[in-house]
């Protein structure tokens, strides 16, 4: 029997796509949206935004609500860059964290659990496509809870005021919102993905996401009570983020420590996390 081995059969018609990571993002989002409690929890994460909108309204109708805000400090309802800083770097971050731990903990952990990495990497994808695809999911969640409401607040403020005076007074504010939101997104992308590569069990990852964030803040509180040194605030993720936010929104920092140290620590963490993540993804091998 003579076999013609030179012949090749090929009927496939492929379309080159510029963003190879996009199907990974879509697939991950699809899986997240299918989760039982995603919609109510995601809606709950907008609760602080809702209260801030109410605050915006009250601040514009102070006369009507005087009976409600009697005794409150005047800066409490003042709409200025600090108002936006408080939204983006205040306790609202806890809501964001709950969203991340509930829905993003399994982004890589579930792939590890299902041994799915060979499926991704035997396709025309690079490791960076995989990681960008996963990070884009976190970016979607974080940006819809930070940049989008932040910019909408400005629009609502102008609508309630009926003028552009606010934007004229702070023309740099939209840029500050975007810069800080993207910084926050980059940090939480790497933070979540790093922790997600550390275990095949997404529940452990979820606990780690929450615990490390809270523990870093508790550690600062504990050490500060002992040593009274403000530089110990550099241990706290929350305070580091707030210090950077204070700089971006041109506000006085909470701690008497230069914002740059906090920035440096967060950026160093991000660089280290990206290196570790690439290593962890590479190291997925089965020894036989």
């Amino acid at each position: 029997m003579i076999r013609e081995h030179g012949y090749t059969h090929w009927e496939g018609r492929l379309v080159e796509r510029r963003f190879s990571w996009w199907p990974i993002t879509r697939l991950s989002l699809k899986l997240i949206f299918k989760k039982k409690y995603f919609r109510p929890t995601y809606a709950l994460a907008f609760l602080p935004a809702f209260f801030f909108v109410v605050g915006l309204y009250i601040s514009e109708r102070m006369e009507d609500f005087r009976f409600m805000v009697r005794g409150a400090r005047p800066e409490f309802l003042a709409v200025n860059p600090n108002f936006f800083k408080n939204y983006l770097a205040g306790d609202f971050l806890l809501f964001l964290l709950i969203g991340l731990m509930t829905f993003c903990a399994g982004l890589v952990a579930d792939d590890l659990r299902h041994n799915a990495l060979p499926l991704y990497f035997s396709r025309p994808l690079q490791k960076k496509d995989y990681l960008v695809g996963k990070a884009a999911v976190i970016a979607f969640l974080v940006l819809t809870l930070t940049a989008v409401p932040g910019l909408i607040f400005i629009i609502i403020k102008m609508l309630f005021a009926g003028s552009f005076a606010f934007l004229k007074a702070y023309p740099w504010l939209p840029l500050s919102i975007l810069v800080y939101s993207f910084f926050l997104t980059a940090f939480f992308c790497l933070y979540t993905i790093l922790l997600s590569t550390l275990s095949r069990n997404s529940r452990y990852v979820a606990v780690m996401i929450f615990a490390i964030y809270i523990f870093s803040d508790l550690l600062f509180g504990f050490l500060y009570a002992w040593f009274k040194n403000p530089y110990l605030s550099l241990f706290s993720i929350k305070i580091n983020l707030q210090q950077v936010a204070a700089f971006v929104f041109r506000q006085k920092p909470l701690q008497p420590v230069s914002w740059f140290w906090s920035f440096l620590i967060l950026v160093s963490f991000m660089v280290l996390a990206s290196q570790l993540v690439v290593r962890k993804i590479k190291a997925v091998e089965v020894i036989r």
Partner: protein
Amino acid sequence: MSLAVVTEHLSRWYGNVLGLSDVSLEIGPGITGLLGPNGAGKSTLLKLITGQIRPSLGRVTINGQPVTGRPELFFNIGYCPEQDAFFEGMTGFQFLYWMLRLHHFLAERAGLEAEKALRLVDLYDDRNRPIKSYSRGMRQRLKIAQAIAHDPEIMVLDEPLNGLDPLGKRKIIRLIRDYGREGRLVIVSSHVLPEIEALTRKIILIHQGKVFAQGDIHEIRDLIDRHPHVVSIRTPASRVLAAALIQQPFVVKAYFGDDEESLLVETKNRDQFFRFLLEMAAVKGIKLEEITSPDDNLQAVFDYLVGKG
């Protein structure tokens, strides 16, 4: 350009454990069987070929291009990993659809190709069932489907027949043989000799991380057949059977097991031995309760071939 997978002095260590040592191969179109006992290094070789892991030494090229750092090569490569790799909550169709989307297929086309692949592996009727409800054989067929759905010219299938029922096995063997006949390059690994025999004549024997032999399966089979095989027979007529067997030239030794009913026979020619055994059962009416081969596994054969057995 003709299809070719070339490995040059390929070695891979896992810490102090040697996974693969100095493997140089040139694999062309058609089906090539990769045969070796468990832990021989077959999966390591296939992972290196598909760029899943990087070699400690040496290199792999596919159609003349190094496999690492060239994701575009995977438009034309299908890989079926040995272990299960699924998103359990998805249906079979959804899984294949998304795998095709990762191959840059547009939505409509991905749907069509997914259905086509599901038909090829007989899973079309179960396409809308969640993967977690699939049997082992169905999962195996789905794994094969994801490797062939994008119609690749190069297929790397790691133990594709594992867990399949005889009918499913036959179907998949036929499918793989069709791909080989079309001139595609198919590498199939297995630790079961008859499976590889059913697929191809071209085989590579791999043992302890090294290529032990390479060539036509019949030459290897002859080599293997020179190894005396032990067959265990359970029969109430063990003494009658032993008396008849010991007179045959192909029987080296016959001895009784722990009880009166089990007989162990060492033979140089399995085919002749089994023919004779069936004849005894049919003509003399000897009742055979159980026939097993204690050393009928590749490890024993390989030990024999490397002089350990």
